């Protein structure tokens, strides 16, 4: 398949890479229909986050069609159109059970790369350095999604891809920013930075009553 790969600081190239495979029984393989760029991608593209390796496939905000599922996947099926969060969650650990999904204990294959720096490890993320798991990203024709029953959200018919793509990352990130502000009905809110996340923060603030 073709994929956008990091080859060094400010050096991205579209290259041919092997297709992903089902590895674990809860995996799904998706055909990526839309994948978008996040502001945080710029951090490692510019070389500010270490542990990228030449040839890594980047991208962590995407929507796609399910092509194949592992034998333990029960809820998601081939042909489903799904949007997937950028953090990979198992749904069973203490953190997932307490809705602290980005701290999932069971989806980071290389926590020893991250713990010395942060003091703890996060969940794995698609296409976002080996310190965050080293999973291949979504700027590709296909992607492997672990724990598909937990991490794939089926998109209802009649909703376009571009309407739900940002539920993968930018929308919940912006919503969290607005939620932190304890907004009350009638408040006036200023948002600094009108990128994708900033726009989502504005919409979220309006939904919360601003």
């Amino acid at each position: 398949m073709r994929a956008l790969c990091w080859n060094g600081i400010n050096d991205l190239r579209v290259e041919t890479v092997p297709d992903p495979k089902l590895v674990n029984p809860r995996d799904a393989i998706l055909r990526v229909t839309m994948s978008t760029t996040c502001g945080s991608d710029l951090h490692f593209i510019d070389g500010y986050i270490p542990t990228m390796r030449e040839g890594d496939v980047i991208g962590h905000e995407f929507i796609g069609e399910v092509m194949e599922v592992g034998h333990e996947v029960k809820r998601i099926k081939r042909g489903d159109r799904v949007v997937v969060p950028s953090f990979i969650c198992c749904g069973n650990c203490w953190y997932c059970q307490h809705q602290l999904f980005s701290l999932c204990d069971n989806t980071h294959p290389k926590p020893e790369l991250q713990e010395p720096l942060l003091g703890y490890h996060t969940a794995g993320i698609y296409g976002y350095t080996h310190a965050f798991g080293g999973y291949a990203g979504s700027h590709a024709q296909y992607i492997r999604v672990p724990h598909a029953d937990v991490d794939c959200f089926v998109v209802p018919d009649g909703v376009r891809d571009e309407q739900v793509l940002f539920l993968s990352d930018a929308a919940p990130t912006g919503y969290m920013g607005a939620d932190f502000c304890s907004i009350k009905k009638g408040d006036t809110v200023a948002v600094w930075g009108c990128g994708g996340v900033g726009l989502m923060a504005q919409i979220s603030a309006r939904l919360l009553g601003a």
Partner: protein
Amino acid sequence: MMSGERGSGIEAMSWQGIEGRAATGRVNVGDVERLGSLIAAGALALLGAGTSTPGRVLTSVTSGALLYRGVSGHCPLYQVLGLNSTGRLSAGQRAEDRDDPWHTTIHRSITIGMPSAELYERFRKPETLSRIMGHFAEVTAAEKGGLTLHVHGPLGKELNWSMEQVEARSGELLTFRSPASSMVQSEWSARFRPALGADRGSELSFSLRLTPPAGLLGRGLLKLLGAGPSVLVERLLRNFKSLVEAGEIPTTEHNPAARPTGRIAALVHHQLEA
């Protein structure tokens, strides 16, 4: 310590490994060995001077490599094998490994969201041990509740050793030890107890002592297989936690990327990155 902050990570992880890396730089050859390398480089250069052209080329290259090793104190082969004869920490070593990790008992603990009795039953199964040891070893049942470990080495070589069950207290403790005559001397114990906190499950404390055969060579080969003793224990506990909590062990095997694939390429890349 992570355990105090999060309650479900591995205890005894710390910043010490990072400090160790900063302290050592690239020097991984001890002073005596460096002197030996310089003497050998000089001797080879003298010997090579009187030989035929192919012999001169070979001795010149070897002599140059030894000269580099002696002057710089850095040995690329040691780096790939994860060895260090300076007595200081090499990349990836924990501070507790400073003396000799292969003669030190490594202790680690992890919190797992499951009752002790259930964890005990899962942990004692050879098939579970095989899965959580990953590529390092396959485990099969032996007589009288014992285990046999099969380590698949390079060129199809296999290293096998048996471990006898020393103690088994249901839901609490498992201890295994290799017989005195074993080529590999090893002992491990797994202790299970309820974790602090009502909804936290259990705490699994694991201790390992492992002395491979063939001195530095054996240690280097095990390190190549990803089995530095502290890293081995940490991976084993994390893999067990993921297996019982999430039903599978996280992996990036067969990960699409635009770079060479294959086990040897991955091993060399991993070791050079460490």
